[in-house]
């Protein structure tokens, strides 16, 4: 039972982390390696709001944090990525460099140690199927499911969402129909970054805000996306369930240190068995030999 409950929670956590990355890559073909950095930055900004300004409402801090994260994402595209669009190597190096710069800058600026924590939304815990689960994790699961539904609705039933999907499927045809490629890319980065921030605010209260988490978030996001197949929202979710349960099982029977090993092994096995990922369809041949 413990495995089942915590496996579900862990899987939803992973899919929350990776949805932003998957969204950005599937729409604008930009691998946003600054994803982990934005995750930590949002947590830190919210921490600053509620700890440096006394009496600052938590909800307002959260809304501000998510918007700032989105704005940073949009700015990264507008100021930097727009100039190197299409040069794959440069895109990778530039976004990775931005991410590392933000993370190491925060570390230098004093984000060290265990003192940085966010308060949980609702404290206390309950029992589900005989397993003790604290309310924050339930909030995570509910919000994760809602985010997924929201994204599905957004990309399938709103004008903006349909425009984003149009660009993702066929950029030229979409441009002929009057959809601005750069604008949608900015939008996708903003939404992706905001999702990273949203995930951060849900998950960080469960632990400390540490710089190392930024790197591992990026790695897990990428692992999930590679296994699920990029460009597929459903694949992302299913892959996060696979990795999520695998991690909980290793945690139970081996040791926590092996979580990264499991993620990498999962990637390697997926690549050998089905190189395009479980649900990857788009441009399969062009991307992977």
């Amino acid at each position, binding site marked *: 039972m413990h495995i089942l409950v915590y496996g579900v929670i862990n899987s939803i956590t992973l899919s929350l982390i990776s949805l932003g990355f998957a969204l950005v890559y599937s729409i604008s073909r930009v691998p946003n390696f600054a994803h982990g950095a934005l995750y930590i930055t949002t947590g830190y900004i919210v921490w600053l709001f509620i700890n440096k300004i006394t009496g600052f409402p938590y909800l307002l801090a959260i809304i501000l944090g998510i918007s700032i994260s989105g704005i940073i994402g949009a700015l990264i595209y507008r100021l930097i990525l727009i100039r190197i669009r299409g040069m794959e190597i440069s895109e990778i190096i530039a976004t990775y460099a931005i991410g590392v710069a933000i993370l190491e800058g925060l570390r*230098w600026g004093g984000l060290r140690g265990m003192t940085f924590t966010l308060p949980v939304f609702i404290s206390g815990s309950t029992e589900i199927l005989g397993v003790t689960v604290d309310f924050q994790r339930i909030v995570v699961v509910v919000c994760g499911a809602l985010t997924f539904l929201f994204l599905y609705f957004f990309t399938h039933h709103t004008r903006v969402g349909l425009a984003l999907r149009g660009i993702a499927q066929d950029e030229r045809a979409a441009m002929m129909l009057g959809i601005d490629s750069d604008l949608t890319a900015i939008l996708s980065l903003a939404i992706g970054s905001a999702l990273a921030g949203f995930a951060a605010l849900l998950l960080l209260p469960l632990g400390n805000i540490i710089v190392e988490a930024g790197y591992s978030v990026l790695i897990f996001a990428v692992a999930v996306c590679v296994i699920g197949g990029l460009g597929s929202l459903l694949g992302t979710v299913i892959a996060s369930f696979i990795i999520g349960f695998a991690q909980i099982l290793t945690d139970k029977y081996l040791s926590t240190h092996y979580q990264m090993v499991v993620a990498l092994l999962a990637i390697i096995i997926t690549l050998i068995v089905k190189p395009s990922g479980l649900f990857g369809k788009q441009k399969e041949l062009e991307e992977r030999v």
Partner: protein
Amino acid sequence: MEQLRRERLDRSLKVRTEGIYAISAFEEILYLLGPRLLFIVGILILPFILEAAPYWKRVINIMCAYAIIAISFDFLSNFVGLVCLGGALFTGIGGYFTAIYNHYFSFPMYLSIPLAAVSGALFCTVVLLPALPLRGVYFAIVTLMYPLLFSRIIEALNILGGTNGISGIQSFPNPYIEHYTVILILLFFLFGLRRFVNEDIGLVFRGVKDNDQAVKASGINVTTIKIYAVFIASLMGCFSGAYIAHLYMWAGLSLFALDFSIIPIASTVIGGGGTLIGAVIGSFILVPLSEILREAGTLRIVIYCVVLTLFIVFKSEGLMIYLQRKYHQFERWVKV
């Protein structure tokens, strides 16, 4: 209004040195050999120049070790199209292999370094084998994980000294051997690789980068070609790692650190990708800079990353290609 545009023309000297006339006069010979000789002689007498500053003499070693890693990154990314964000994998594996040979099997240093370079390279190639069918983003992502993975494994299993690392590795008998080992190997790799990429196989490498479907259609196995390339690149990286381990007489988890991945990338971009020598020049600029900024701690990495991003966005050709252009061509303003 009169409009002007800038026109670039090859220098007459350059045109003259392109054919057999290159050896017709000393001027032409000097034009061709000058920059190369300046570099080779400069780097060879560098330890003597810095005799006055003993601290900076040690920086030469690190500088050259980083230069070798940077060449390997440049080769892999700009000639084969495999962007390896985890260069620290190579240094870490090389360092640990030499530590194992030297510490557990007590091989002498001149045996353990080459052995570590070759066996480490084999090991890295085998480990990277599943990732090789990938390209671009996917390869970058997977390589990013490897150094972290290995340091986690060493930490978790508490093997090879665990978090303390393996200390007591044999050091170099005297400083000049220390300097000239790495300088000569650097020159060997630099000029050897320049030759190598202009051979037939170099053409295939570039084919893999630019259009792997075409290479595949020519009946050449892309993955095999990538295996060769990764072996060569990891040979260089593992040598650097083994050398650094002997230099510090210690092999530990810091050999898998981010520095070994980021600085070579930054030097390649700053120096100019695809020139090989550019990567060397980039690390000759960045490593001393990082020594100056030693007190600043992690701010160093921030500075590299900012410089790196600025170079990629605004000056993506890099220093070396800029200098080459100035050397070979002149500019003038002409009427439109």
